[in-house]
């Protein structure tokens, strides 16, 4: 009986789709009704995800709330979803940002119906990607999410939106299509070895392939994820997409979409191909640290606020990658924590830039200055978010960065030292930007009569700020829920390393780090 009812997770995945279908049947003139329907859907989804958080067993590292339905039996493809400490907070991040971006889109007047339809289907795609435990299902959600994002950038974006949208799709697809080949290949090999054709991730985890095959498969997966992260040098699509996307698109892009790449490493590439991961770690770390410093330097030189934040994302996601490939508990935990906190603070930054853009129709830093006088409330919010992005102790950014650096110092001290300069550079470009935009005398008379942010905008920003503070001072409930699942991933890497018959990794710094943790 209860089998026929959708589980909590399925509801979270498909509530937005349901809302999107309802939106399709509301006449396009009734924009308020459209917005309210979408907002209600997103809120309900968020509430339901809170229910999952409430009933989540913190001490359990394995999948919870799993749901399994046969989808294509002949090929062993299932609708198989579940949640663990890794995906829990990413899903919450996505459902939390859902209502916020819809509220932030209230100023959209053209083609509202289609806009909300795509926003809601996008949410389904994102949540599904985080929850899918069947490789085929994962790929489906991963690709499904591209289409609404393509439309959101392409239809409601800035002047070069078509170029940016196409670039976004082509970059992402060039990686993900090779991942599709790798997914089919790994399932085929699994069928050859175990005799059952399945795309079930949990069962494929136990597959142990020779090192030569692992490397190729790892590369195919890693390319797809690295483009999404984006890891230097695959980042060139990101500034274009961010600059051209509407505010809500940027928030979703920076807040959730980029995390899909790092999540992919944590869920798929690392535990599936441990030997290849260990072999590739030095290269990935080198790219990550290059990205940290490069992103920070380029961000410093930007004149466009959105571009600056886009490059700062490249830098911050470099930290996440560094933590992941440190391959120890602190590194992984810090990365996961940083994914969430980057989602919040960068999301908030894009919202703030969107608010100022709506007032002045420019995003150039040079057009601002001394905004604190006409916009005091705005400036206060902006300050907290800026500090959070820098990683000020007491705010969310600090915890993640600190743990990542801790983990990285354990495994690769030299690279970690390089990454530390990124922290300093980050403080420089963010504070410099803040000074030029908000502080100092009012240099442009047009800015004199700007209206400070209103109730709707405060309602948008306050929950994010509350979380930024909460995550900064009391990380324990979050970290403790992440830990068991992360330890499982680490154990998987280590187990396979010790039983590896074909490849003995050289004593790289990375392996030393994880061994120490293993004790």
């Amino acid at each position, binding site marked *: 009986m209860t089998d026929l009812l959708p589980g909590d997770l399925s509801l979270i995945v498909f509530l937005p789709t349901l809302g999107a279908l309802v939106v399709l049947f509301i006449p396009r003139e009734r924009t308020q009704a459209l917005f309210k329907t979408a907002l209600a859907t997103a809120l309900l989804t968020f509430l339901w995800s809170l229910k999952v958080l409430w009933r989540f067993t913190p001490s359990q590292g394995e999948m919870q709330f799993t749901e399994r339905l046969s*989808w*294509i*039996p*002949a*090929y062993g493809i299932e609708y198989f979803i579940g949640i663990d400490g890794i995906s829990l907070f990413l899903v919450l991040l996505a459902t939390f940002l859902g209502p916020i971006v819809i509220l932030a889109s209230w100023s959209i007047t053209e*083609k509202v119906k*289609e806009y909300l339809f795509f926003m809601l289907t996008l949410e389904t795609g994102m949540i599904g990607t985080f929850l899918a435990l069947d490789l*085929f299902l994962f*790929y*489906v959600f991963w*690709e*499904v999410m*591209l*289409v609404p994002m*393509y*439309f959101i950038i*392409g*239809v409601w974006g800035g002047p070069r*939106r*078509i170029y940016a*949208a*196409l670039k976004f*799709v*082509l970059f992402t*697809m*060039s990686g993900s*299509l*090779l991942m*599709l*080949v790798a997914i*089919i*290949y790994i399932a*085929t090999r699994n069928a050859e070895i175990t005799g059952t054709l399945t795309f079930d991730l949990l069962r494929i985890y136990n597959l142990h392939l020779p090192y030569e095959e692992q490397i190729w498969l790892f590369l195919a997966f890693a390319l797809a994820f690295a483009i999404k992260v984006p890891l230097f040098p695959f980042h060139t699509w990101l500034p274009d997409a961010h600059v051209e996307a509407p505010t809500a698109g940027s928030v979703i892009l920076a807040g959730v979409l980029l995390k899909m790449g790092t999540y992919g490493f944590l869920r798929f590439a690392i535990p599936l191909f441990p030997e290849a991961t260990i072999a590739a770690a030095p290269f990935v770390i080198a790219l990550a640290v290059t990205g940290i410093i490069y992103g920070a330097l380029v961000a410093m030189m930007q004149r466009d606020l959105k571009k600056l934040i886009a490059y700062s994302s490249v830098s911050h996601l470099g930290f996440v990658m560094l933590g992941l490939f440190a391959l120890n508990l602190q590194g992984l935990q810090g990365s996961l924590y940083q994914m969430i906190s980057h989602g919040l603070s960068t999301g908030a930054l894009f919202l703030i830039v969107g608010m100022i853009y709506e007032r002045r129709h420019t995003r150039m830093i040079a057009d601002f200055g001394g905004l604190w006088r006409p916009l005091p409330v705005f400036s206060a919010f902006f300050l907290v978010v800026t500090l959070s992005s820098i990683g000020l102790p007491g705010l969310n950014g600090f915890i993640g960065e600190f743990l990542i650096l801790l983990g990285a110092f354990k495994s690769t001290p030299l690279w970690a030292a390089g990454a530390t300069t990124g922290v300093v550079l980050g403080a420089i470009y963010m504070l410099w930007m803040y000074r030029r935009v908000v502080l100092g005398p009012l240099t442009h008379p047009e800015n004199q009569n700007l209206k400070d942010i209103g109730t709707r905008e405060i309602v948008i920003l306050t929950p994010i700020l509350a979380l930024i503070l909460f995550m900064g001072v009391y990380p324990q409930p979050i970290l403790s829920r992440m830990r068991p699942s992360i330890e499982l991933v680490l154990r998987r890497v280590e187990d396979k390393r010790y039983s590896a018959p074909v490849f003995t990794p050289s004593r790289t710094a990375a392996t030393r780090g994880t061994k120490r943790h293993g004790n």
Partner: protein
Amino acid sequence: METNLIPLLPAAEIALTALIVLLLDLFLREREKGILAWITILGLGIAGGMTFFLWDDPQSAFQNSLVLDNFGLFFTNLLIGAAVITVLFSVHYLNETNIQRGEYHVLILFSTFGMVLMVTANDLILFFLGLETLSVALYVLTGMWRERKSSSEAAMKYFINGAFASGFLLYGIALIFGATGSTNLARISASLAQSTTQGQGLLSVGVLLLLVGLSFKVAAVPFHFWAPDVYEGAPTSVTGFMAVAVKAAAFAAWTRILVHQLAPMSSEWSFILWTMAVLTMTVGNVLAIAQASVKRMLAYSSIAHAGYLLIGVIAGGEVGGSALLFYLVAYTLMSLGAFGVVMALKEGENDNEQLTHFAGLGFRRPFLGMTMSIFMLSLAGFPPLGGFIGKFYLFRSAIVSGHTELAIIGVLNSLLSVVYYLRVIVMMYMEEGGVQGKSLASSPYLYAAIAITALGVVYLGVIPAPALDLSRTSFLSLR
């Protein structure tokens, strides 16, 4: 020995309908001729209904030269479906193009008849007869838009190229006959098993020529040169029919003859096919990018899709064959639907087939925009649509059969194709201007048929299991 005529029933029923329509056409007045479309659909429907009674009951006729197995029935239904949708498409379209109703429907029926023969033939001669019946009907259909020079030109081109292809085919059949002493596929297959070295070279050349002939029909590179001009010149409803039905029938024959009966010889042609598949995919996709006309773009895209289908032929066996069958169903729906939307834009004398005519369509005509987006995304291979599942199985068949490189080339080609399929969506949703497409806006049948194909594409993507099982069991029914 008594002749069992039951396997002939569906084909005969279609031919009979054709004759009835032909006769009625003489007696009906011009304004009453609308009924011919419904008689055509009724006739096709009855033939389709017959297949349900014949399912799972393989029978053969004429000394085993015609075999009505599930494989044949599967394709019979697919072809009937394509023909019905084409007829629905053309109810009002024929008014716009001044094409004679009677002849049009008769020819659609005769070509369907030819195709049904082709997919049930187990004898090379009968296969050839089916192919010729279909081809002659299509030559005329291509040229039926008599007001257009391009239509006549296309018909001429198609005819000359088709005649060439038929020559190759017939020559190939003759050589195979010379080598094995039979035109019956079962006997040819049996003589392969005995493997006498005598006449082996002759057989190889014969199969090669057969391959060339079939490649012409599916427009595989390097035998594709006729396709873009013919597809562009023909009336759009005919183009859609040609692009999907001929392809399906030819690939069905290809599957029966090469993948199944001559499978032991696969080592001889697999390299040639490999090269052709790669070339077909790449040339089709690269040239499609350069097109400004949507109709012509779809022509090149249909070439590219023939390339993907060849992957299934190369992979062979159960996994390749069933992937091929499934892909043909998905391809039929999404490609026909796309041609339907192109038809819907026609306004009087203006065909409105250029990319620029699609500008802003998504918001001006939401239904057409949405369905066209579904077709384009499915053709490009986005989940959860039929085209994605189809590609997934084709690429999987390549990997399972040890051709991972083909899967990689295939996905890279899909990436190329995204460029031009998404360009249509860019036009429809991200540009302004374009045309209304009012002339056919009052054709409920056209719109209904587009909706049916779009729903089919979504259905195949979301619930692929039934169609997949059907493809597999149909392929396995080959004997």
